[in-house]
């Protein structure tokens, strides 16, 4: 049964040191505010899961929150590489994180299997690809009807799934529209969940086949206007492309990064996000 609470309390109650946490969102609806709150609360030893780690993972890793990263594509979309991630993997700053690397198909199937209560996912994957040499979590299964060998990966069941969505109603039912990514699977697969929303409304008025998470599948809901910025919320504000471009030089330098984090994350609270999307 979804509990309405502040983002501070939602993170404090649900995300613990050492947890496996998936902050999902496929370009759209990335839960930036929730990731920043996690950094402010100084979580440590997290296993971070995400198909497309981008700025928030660069920030979580650079601030020393992560022990391990499970992912399939780590980049600043349309801009380049993640420099804090590189610094950790290549130079061990602030420490070297462990990497578990998959393909998108594997991650998407792993979340799907996690949501479906299965122990593993099977798919036609990794043919000729070298990841299976370096990732022991890529195995295979033989089709009992055709003899075809299919790739298998363990189901993904994070301790906590974190997403941003357009709205919740007062019972805590959540509506996600547009590019829905793997968010529904992420929440259904996770033991606990935090959903930040743009607004809380009396009635979701959803299309009959819209992507809706019933209130009894969500642990905590926090309203954070603009909480996806610089990602976007379809129907609310567009992607702040300039912010992504500007991130590159900040992330390139350890001191610039730390100063930026101090100013833009540690010293502020979730309410700052509303002002960041004004006029976009």
């Amino acid at each position, binding site marked *: 049964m979804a509990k309405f609470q502040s983002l501070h309390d939602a993170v404090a109650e649900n995300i613990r040191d050492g947890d496996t946490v998936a902050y999902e969102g*496929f*370009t*759209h609806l990335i839960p930036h505010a929730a990731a920043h709150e996690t950094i402010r609360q100084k979580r440590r030893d997290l296993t971070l899961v995400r*198909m*497309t780690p981008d700025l928030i993972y660069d920030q979580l890793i650079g601030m020393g929150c992560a022990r391990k990263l499970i*992912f*399939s*594509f*780590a*980049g600043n*979309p*349309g801009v380049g*590489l*993640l420099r804090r*991630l*590189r610094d950790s*993997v*290549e130079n061990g700053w602030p420490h070297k994180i462990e990497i578990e*690397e998959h*393909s*998108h*198909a594997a991650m*998407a*199937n792993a*979340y*799907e299997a996690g949501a479906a209560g299965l122990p593993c996912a099977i*798919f*036609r*994957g*990794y*043919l*000729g*690809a*070298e*990841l299976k040499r*370096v990732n022991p979590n890529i195995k295979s299964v033989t089709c009992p009807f055709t003899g*075809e060998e299919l790739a298998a990966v363990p189901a993904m069941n994070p301790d906590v799934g974190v997403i941003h969505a357009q709205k919740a109603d007062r019972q805590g039912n959540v509506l996600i529209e*547009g*590019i*829905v*990514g*793997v968010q*529904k*699977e992420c929440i259904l697969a996770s033991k606990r969940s935090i959903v930040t929303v743009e607004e809380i409304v009396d009635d979701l008025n959803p299309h009959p086949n819209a*992507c809706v998470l019933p209130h009894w599948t969500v642990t905590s809901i926090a309203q954070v206007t603009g909480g996806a910025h610089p990602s*976007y919320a*379809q129907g609310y504000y*567009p*992607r702040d*492309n*300039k912010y*992504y*471009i500007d991130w590159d030089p900040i992330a390139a330098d350890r001191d610039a990064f730390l100063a930026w984090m101090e100013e833009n994350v540690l010293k502020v609270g979730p309410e700052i996000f509303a002002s960041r999307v004004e006029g976009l």
Partner: protein
Amino acid sequence: MDYKPDEMMTVAAARALKNSDVCFVGIGAPSAACNLARLTHAPDITLIYESGTINTKPNVLPLSIGDGELCETALTTVSVPEMFRYWLQGGRITIGFLGAAQLDKFGNINTTIVGDYDSPKVRLPGGGGAPEIAVSCGEIFITLKQTPRGMVDKIDFVTSFGFGKGGDERERMGIKTKGPSRLMTDLAIWEPDPVTKEFTVTSLHPGVTRAQMAETVGWEIKYADSVAETPPPTEEELTVLRDLKARTAAAHGGKTA
């Protein structure tokens, strides 16, 4: 009209696409080529981005694989698990478009690491959709700028499979799709030799010399018996491409994909 090598590359890639194609589109050069094709000779081409957007017709090029523009102009938007299961693995895509950080002459691609996997010199973004795009799509088009660091004799990591060590290795592995059937660079068009599967230059872009080619490629280049000259971009192609890039720049606040 004057044009840049980069524009020639995009135009050459666009020309390879047919009106009936269903394309799985990556960001950057592939996205520009696919949309150029749609805005010129292939108005009904089906463009699919891995964010779940199907039959999308963006008016400006997306900066990311999941820009709002892609969803707003799509026929429908599905979840990412559905995209990889029903649409890619389901065998519905005719052309997969890939870029590469490192490429070898058999169309094997590395976008994972430079150096050793466990202690890499450069940690690249990783494979994303590529490992399965490379085997599930009917055929693969590759597009990248030629550099000796990009087109190498031996890639550091096989992120996605092309023809392996060449010949019939692909078929012997039970893969039923064609694999990399075309490579479009800023200097040339390459196609795999029918038997060895080694990428072979079949067309040089106007003014490109074999010396220039040798400087930008890290393996000994094979040329087809008769090497064509790529027709230069037409005025229509260039105008449409530049309009698209200008609209994109305006929409993205001064930066283009």
